[in-house]
């Protein structure tokens, strides 16, 4: 991992932000284009330690995505408070990066320009923006594709560009909303490992929403299981697996890993049945 060492040298090892949700509820008006109106999140209390990697899982429609959008500031909560890094979230901010389900790249910009978009928006000089973008794209194995357009890339590569774009502003909190749902399993595992390496090098706070339970166990330090709609925190499970998981090819076959997945699965099934 040559790239890893260069990255850790160039980046200040500042801790990520702490995340706090205090009695957060979210109601949606009926006929919003979504399934149904009504209560989506019900009085969620949650604290995420700075610099930790946390996954959120839960039955379909339990408000995982909504929770993430509240953290990103893309929607306001109907009740309660959302704090990130000690401050109330009042709208989108470059301090909180987000990776969406679809790569959502700007189709009219090249890979490099997609990634320099963020730095340029926060007032970094074009030269520095390009250096930073090139750095992260190289880290993610895209150095040969800087001047390609998104539609020329495969889904996995597009999603890696999206990761680079979200991380290049060096946000204190990185949110990911089922980012690899559209990828095949091999690519998915690869990109997952890259995200994990990224977390390990940056020491930011990562919040990862997924419906793949094994992935949640594999990637995070804690798995938060939400109840069925309206979502609330049902259970938090600590994942005591080694930090540098990508280095251990047999991890996914270890009894400890299997036990943790089984535990999450049981609680998940319980919650689905209750809903």
């Amino acid at each position, binding site marked *: 991992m040559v790239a890893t060492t260069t990255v850790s040298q160039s980046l200040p090892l500042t801790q990520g932000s702490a995340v706090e949700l205090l009695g957060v509820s979210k109601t949606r008006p009926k006929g919003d284009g979504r399934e149904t109106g009504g209560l989506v999140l019900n009085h969620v209390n949650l604290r995420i330690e700075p610099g930790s990697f946390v996954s959120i899982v839960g039955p379909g429609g339990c408000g995982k995505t909504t929770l993430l959008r509240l953290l990103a500031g893309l929607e306001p909560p109907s009740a309660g408070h959302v704090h990130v890094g000690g401050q109330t979230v009042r709208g*989108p901010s470059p301090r909180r*990066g987000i990776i969406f389900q679809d790569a959502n790249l700007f189709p009219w*910009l090249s890979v490099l320009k997609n990634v320099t978009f963020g730095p340029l928006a926060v007032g970094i000089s074009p030269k520095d923006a390009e250096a930073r973008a090139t750095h992260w794209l190289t880290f993610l194995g*895209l150095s*040969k*594709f800087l001047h390609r357009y998104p539609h020329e890339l495969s889904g996995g*590569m597009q999603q890696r560009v999206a990761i680079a774009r979200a991380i290049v502003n060096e946000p204190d909190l990185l949110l990911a909303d089922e980012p690899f749902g559209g990828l095949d399993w091999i690519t998915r*595992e690869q990109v997952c490992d890259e995200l994990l390496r990224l977390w390990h090098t940056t020491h930011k706070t990562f919040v990862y929403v997924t419906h793949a339970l094994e992935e949640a166990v594999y990637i995070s330090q804690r798995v938060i299981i939400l109840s069925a709609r309206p979502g609330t925190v049902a259970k938090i499970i600590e994942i005591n697996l080694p930090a540098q998981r990508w280095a251990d090819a047999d991890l996914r*076959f270890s009894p400890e890993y299997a036990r943790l997945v089984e535990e999450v699965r049981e609680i998940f099934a319980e919650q689905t049945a209750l809903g």
Partner: protein
Amino acid sequence: MASEELRTAIPVAERDSATPEVIAPDAIPLPSNRVINLRAGTSVIIWLIVLAVHNLIPQAGASFKVPTDYLSPAALLVLGITLASWAAAYVVQGRREQVLAIYRVMIVLGVALIPWEVAERLAWIKPPFFPSASKIIGVYIEDSGTLLLSVAYSLRLLVVGYVIGSIAGVAFGLALGWSKHVSNWSMFWIRLIGPIPATAWIPLAIVIFPSSFTAGIFLIAFASWFPVMMLTWSGVAGVPKALLEAAQTLGADDRRLLRHVVIPAALPNVFVGLFMSLGTAFAILIVAEMLGVKAGLGWYITWSQGWSEYHKVYAAMLVLGALFIVVVSGIFKVRDRLLGWQKGILRW
């Protein structure tokens, strides 16, 4: 298990270069010698027939003076072009598609000319409404000065009106798509006034504007404004919300959002609007020139009609068509520059 090991064994960068994930367009095979020879031969034969019909069939009906023959030189020119491009197809093989395109035009033109010439020689069709091909070609030689001047005047009127209308259209469209207030307040009025045909404004325009030229500009600008505005508006409204959100979480303020996300995302639609409104602008151009403007192709057509010189009407109509092609390809050039990223996704 095997893939696990493979994955950890190869570094990221090499994995990418090992799998060519970038999509390259398929190469189109060049037209064969047989196709080139067949098309070129057909073109030569057809144009020889045109020459034969024109020169061998005696002119029926009384004619006081024999008009200058422009068709024979033109047919010879076409034959020359056919032979030259036939040779070119073998010298520059990469240009074969273009050579075939020339032949297709030549062949269709020749096939259409043969019955026309027969009918004209045997006096089945009557001048001045249906003049001979020779007479129409003659206009380009005998009256080229007036024709060129008319083109220049028409272009001036068209370009000024169209540019003003398009800029206004884009500006209005952006404002409507961007601000709920603007669209709420103006929706009704735009629905009411926008669809009024520009021609209906003629009586008013003539009174309001100091000259027929400025009135013409207004009419053309009005005609191009509406489609450009509507398409820009729908383009802005159709910008994926996800892209706006992505830009916002990257730190973009409203200004940057508009300039770097909304405008580029709406641009494909804007160009559809520009293309659509150009057709209307051309129509209004001719109407305006027929009604009052004292120069230009529209004026030339009305003027020629007044003198019963219908061959000039036909000649001017063809010029009008050619002018449209030139202006459209200009717009397409700009579009291809700005929307290069779209190639492969959408083609017109």
